[in-house]
């Protein structure tokens, strides 16, 4: 289980996170949602150690990541895979080299063994046979899937995903969402996704945390989110015209 306790972070005078606590359910797809500027991405970066919190701590299966020594942090990081918003593929490396990169950093693995694992990951994300392509030759959706293959190529326990659907059309977004959810179940890992896409929320939101102005305002799942009485969350969920008309019809029917 991943727990985060009383996380506070400010950049200059601007307080981005004002004491956020919670936990992510193991083996599930956990979503952090909220409008732009509410601190979702900062919380994600604190969780993976890219940003240090001003206060608070992050605990991975009883290992205090925030206060742990260098060895503990390295050990936890080896259990983490991350899919960045734009993929963050290394431009000068082929698809195969990108996916193999985390394995290359580990000692004691033979090339054939690494290649088998890379091919399995590429096949799992639907990109078998694309090994020798360069990132510049791939579409946005393919880049995301290569990045996902790289994120899961190690023996990971936790997968973090930052805005998986940004820049993708609705159909490709669903493909990527479903892929993440399937991989979460197959590998039995804990997945944490930062998103503001309601399609993702309704599709794969096993556990959802709603952030608003640096606070955690609501926690639940995709079945509970439509019937909440938190006005800020309702404003977020029913922000577009289609959702508003759906909500109006529901209210009138009730």
């Amino acid at each position, binding site marked *: 289980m991943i727990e985060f306790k009383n996380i506070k972070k400010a950049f200059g005078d601007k307080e981005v996170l004002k004491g956020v606590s919670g936990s992510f359910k193991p083996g599930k797809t956990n979503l952090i949602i909220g409008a732009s500027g509410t601190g979702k991405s900062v919380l994600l970066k604190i969780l993976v150690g890219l940003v240090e919190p001003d206060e608070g701590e992050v605990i991975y299966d009883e290992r205090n990541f925030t206060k742990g020594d260098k060895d503990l942090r390295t050990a936890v990081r080896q259990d983490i895979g991350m899919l*960045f918003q734009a993929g963050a*593929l290394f431009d000068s490396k082929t698809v195969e080299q990108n996916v193999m990169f985390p394995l290359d950093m580990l*000692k004691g693995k033979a090339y054939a063994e690494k290649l088998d694992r890379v091919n399995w990951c590429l096949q799992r994300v639907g990109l078998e046979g694309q090994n020798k392509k360069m990132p510049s030759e791939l579409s946005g959706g393919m880049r995301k899937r290569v990045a996902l293959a790289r994120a899961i190529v190690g023996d990971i326990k936790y997968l973090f995903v930052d805005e998986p659907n940004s820049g993708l059309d609705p159909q490709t977004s669903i493909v990527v969402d479903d892929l993440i959810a399937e991989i979460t179940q197959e590998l039995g890992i804990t997945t944490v996704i930062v998103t503001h896409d309601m399609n993702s929320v309704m599709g794969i939101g096993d556990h959802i945390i709603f952030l608003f102005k640096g606070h955690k305002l609501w926690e639940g799942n995709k079945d509970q989110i439509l019937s909440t009485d938190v006005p800020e969350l309702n404003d977020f969920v029913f922000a577009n015209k289609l959702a508003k008309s759906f909500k109006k019809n529901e209210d009138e029917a009730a």
Partner: protein
Amino acid sequence: MFNNMESVRTYFRLFIDEAISIGVGSIIIVAIVSTFIGAVTAVQTAYNIVSPLIEDYIIGNIVRDMTILELAPTITAIVFAGKVGSNIAGQLGTMRITDQIDALEVMGINSVSYLVFPKILASMIMYPMLVILAAFLSLYGGFLAATLSGLSTAQDYIYGIRFGFNEFTITFMLVKSVVFAFLVSSISSYKGYYTQGGALEVGESSTKAVTTSCIAILVADYLLAEIMLN
């Protein structure tokens, strides 16, 4: 930079890649610039010799001293800052804004030692070699200009190069080249690594890397001259 480093094999591979990119990739521009600088130095030296009492071999002599003491290490360093410095800053800046550096950190890799250390090491080893090449080609450029335009005979030019040669100037040239390589690679890496923003800021980082490197080279040039020649 030296915490949580990867295996020696990994760094060796990175070093070779950087050495090829930084060193071999700069040979053509360094060759062109240094050959013409030597030629221009020979012609301008001849132009300034108005007294018939000054022997022609002085042209070779002056080209040698100017090349070894200043032109080969310093002018090449300015070219190096423009080519390699901007490349390093642009590369690291792009990696920063596209989250590639964050991706390395999440994998538990010390991104500074993985990305910056091989660049600095490769620069400090390859740049002195480029300076030796530049010095040779500058002297040869001067030789071609002096002999083809009839400013000096080949014998006089070569006699001038050999006349009153002080080996310490070579040491001075190599010390300067190592210092300049460190300055260019470390300043450019710093500017690129700490880029924030988007494509515009990557361009700004590259520009800042070149201008800051050039200023640092000139300041270091003066300080080294004061320390080593006085």
